[in-house]
């Protein structure tokens, strides 16, 4: 768990267009949050931090995430379901 509940990230790439643009800052809440379908989350895939939207939830498998710009996104359609432990937090701003 992070020492501070909020983290600031800067978005790189097009996969969350039109919701999030490259260069835009987001604030991510990392402590005790409840996720639901439609939330945007920061996740960690191997060593890389990514930002995607939750499309499906499952109690045993975690979350299935996708980019809003489906044609330009590498997401759960490629790397499968995300474990809960790989979710850094939930985007609370903007």
């Amino acid at each position: 768990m992070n020492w501070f509940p909020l983290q600031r990230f800067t978005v790189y790439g097009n996969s969350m267009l039109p919701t999030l643009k490259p260069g835009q800052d987001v604030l991510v809440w990392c402590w005790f949050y409840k996720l639901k379908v439609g939330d945007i989350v920061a996740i960690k895939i191997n060593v890389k931090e990514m930002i995607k939207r939750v499309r499906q939830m499952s109690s045993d498998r975690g979350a299935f995430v996708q980019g809003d710009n489906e044609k330009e996104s590498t997401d759960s359609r490629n790397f499968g379901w995300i474990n809960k432990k790989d979710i850094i937090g939930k985007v609370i701003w903007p």
Partner: protein
Amino acid sequence: MKFINLLLKLLPAKPVFAHCDIPCGIYDPQSSQLASQTVLKMVQKLKELQKPQEDKGWMDYKNSMIRMILTKEQHAETCKREILILWTDYFKAEHLEKFPDLHTLVWQTTKLCSDNKRVVDEAKAQELIEAVDKIADIFNQTKK
């Protein structure tokens, strides 16, 4: 809003990636289609190759034959590689749902690439072209 601005100023920014691994639009079945057509062309040229009447023509004959076989071999390999790139990096589960025969089609096409290395057979080369064209057609439909 002021509080948000303060937070944005105070918190260090880390990059978070929203991009695909490779910029989109670089996947294209055309290279595999060209490779499959080259395989057929080489088979046809090999079949047409005339044995020399005189001894002095043998070197050129062998040279041409080896070059054609080598080109056929290389293009069959290129074709297989390009199809496998589409299979592993481009096609997604949703495409398989929409085109349930895709798995078998890719499997048969890559096997046809290997077959075409092994033999000099016009029918097999034609079969490869048709299989690659089917994959290209599916690819184009997913782009609509």
